[in-house]
């Protein structure tokens, strides 16, 4: 290539990359701006609104309202219903983290050993995740139905006597029944994550352990479980987040009842705001829930960093 031609070509190229560079920047800003706008409109704005209304006695639709200072908060924090909802939230969260995680881990360990038809079982156990919480809730409402529900019919068949316990209508069992339904759905998700974690464990490690004299159980305990730490972190993070979001299934199955026995903070907030038209009061509950969530997530991510430091 002749010298002037060469120079022209490289110059054109440089111009080109300059334009591309600028176009790229525009694209980047655009692509970030859209989600940022959506996030602001649907998350940040309502959040700020909640903070604002939590200091008022707004009923949710009237134009006028008064500022009441911290009155909503003092009322919320002293009612028995709030304590009840807080305890239920705790039960709900702990159960929603522990049960699906343990069940998912168990299934993953079972299905990872080369048993026949493992793939079919994996698909079956994962299936509930593909259903919406509303559908899952409705399925379990039917299962728990006192007269013709699957559960009671099974118990009747086994015991030989008619059994008509109303699982969802008794304060003693309602929240636990919902937890069962929730766990049934979430187990598949934990299982899949643990299975992925298991495929990441080199076979050499379990084989060395075997030669070194570790029994199957010892190999699981001393080698497999410690190496599943990263997967466990992910499972627990998702469980926490999902359990805090777990409102729809409660809404479908019990609506917080009977007698507030399955009320969680989210459910309580919903009922106060939208059923009793106490938007200010409900906002105060949501602010408290927000702060609790923030604290949990903050603590959790600090732990996460520690785990990261051990495993690359």
């Amino acid at each position, binding site marked *: 290539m002749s010298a002037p031609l060469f120079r022209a070509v490289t110059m054109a190229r440089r111009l080109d990359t300059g334009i591309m560079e600028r176009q790229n920047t525009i694209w980047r800003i655009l692509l970030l701006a859209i989600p940022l706008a959506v996030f602001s409109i649907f998350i940040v704005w309502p959040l700020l609104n909640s903070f604002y209304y939590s200091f008022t006695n707004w009923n949710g639709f009237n134009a006028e309202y008064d500022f009441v200072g911290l009155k909503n908060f003092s009322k919320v924090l002293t009612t028995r219903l709030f304590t009840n909802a807080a305890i239920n939230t705790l039960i709900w969260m702990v159960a929603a983290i522990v049960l699906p995680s343990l069940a998912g881990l168990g299934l993953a360990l079972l299905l990872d050993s080369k048993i026949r038809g493992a793939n079919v079982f994996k698909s079956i156990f994962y299936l509930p995740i593909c259903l919406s919480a509303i559908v899952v809730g409705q399925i379990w409402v039917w299962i728990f139905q006192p007269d013709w529900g699957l559960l009671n019919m099974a118990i009747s068949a086994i015991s030989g006597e008619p059994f008509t316990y109303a699982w969802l209508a008794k304060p003693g069992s309602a929240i636990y029944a919902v937890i069962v339904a929730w766990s049934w759905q979430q187990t598949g998700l934990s299982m899949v994550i643990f299975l992925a974690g298991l495929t990441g464990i*080199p076979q*050499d*490690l379990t*084989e*060395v*352990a*075997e*030669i*070194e*004299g*570790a029994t199957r159980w*010892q190999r699981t305990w*001393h*080698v497999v479980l*410690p*190496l599943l*730490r990263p997967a466990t972190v992910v499972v627990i993070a998702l469980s926490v987040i999902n359990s805090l979001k777990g409102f729809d299934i409660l809404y479908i199955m019990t609506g917080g009842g009977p007698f507030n026995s399955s009320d969680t903070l989210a459910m309580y907030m919903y009922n106060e705001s939208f059923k009793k038209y106490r938007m200010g009061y409900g906002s105060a509950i949501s602010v408290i829930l927000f702060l609790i969530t923030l604290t949990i997530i903050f603590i959790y991510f600090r732990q996460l960093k520690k785990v990261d430091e*051990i*495993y*690359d």
Partner: protein
Amino acid sequence: MSEVTLKDIRKSFDGLEIIKGVNLEIETGEFVVFVGPSGCGKSTLLRLISGLEDIGSGSITIAGRDVTRVPPSQRGVSMVFQSYALFPHMSVAQNMSFGLRLAKVPKKEIERKVAEAAEVLQITHLLDRKPKQLSGGQRQRVAIGRSIIRNPNVFLFDEPLSNLDAALRVQMRVEISRLHQEIKTTMIYVTHDQVEAMTLADKIVVLNEGRIEQVGTPMELYRRPANRFVAEFIGTPKMNLFDTELVVPQGGSALVSFGSALIPVDDRVAHLQPGASLSLGLRPENLELGSAADPTTAEARIELVEKLGGESMLHAHFPGSKDLFVVNVAGEAAVRPGETVHIKPDPDACYLFDGNGRAIGQS
């Protein structure tokens, strides 16, 4: 006494036979190397000995005990993997003592044994580190440490040096050799690298497609390969093989053709008919450049010259043939690609193989 005895071992995966009847005796204290091309079944054979793989048929004896159906942990073997297989969440000391801790050996004794093994392997200063903080060579030392600490009857190594860079590989090879001289325990070592096999082994087992091709000391295999496969596999650069046939002139002694030349061969071919097709094997170091006037030289054309400093590799072919062979000459060869030269073989260093690839007699 033999430490390990393999009797007619067979193993199939998914109906495909991978180990096709292996018989082998390994003496106590011997350093045995299984060598062969990738996929020939070396690892499988080692895993059968360790018990990680269930045997198809045949039997395995270790230290006089039939262990064919005995689980790996009770066979008195330990294994070092190519990947090192260290537990990432345990320190070096914990990795090394894993088996002893499972066996509930008293803490004092574990500490003493870890310290001892660490001393031998010069990793005492690393005992508190995690595998992540170690180099490849250090990791492999820890893996070896984990093996010696259990004081097994037999050490098994599966390509332990393949993940290391070339310089470190040579160094670790020397150290493994020294370790063997020091502890004198039976070792079975798998590698696809014949140089490793030659330098480490008391006894080499050449495997090919699930069968043993030959067993012998490194020099036996080098000097008297039982067949074409072993002849080509052992020795670097590879032995050159030429398709040729037996020529017996009226009243003269037997000859084979080497390009345009004829090389006399001794009476090891006495039982063959003139015209029988043979393979002639000549190692690159047994070929040299000669003069055109010498009737025992063959004309050849140089394709490529590799100068390695102390020696040169000439890649050449006979006129009318495309098959390249290698000539190893000392120093910097004064020939260039495209040049015609005359190659002189050493008639006393010829290997002959029959139509089935079996060696004929031995030189």
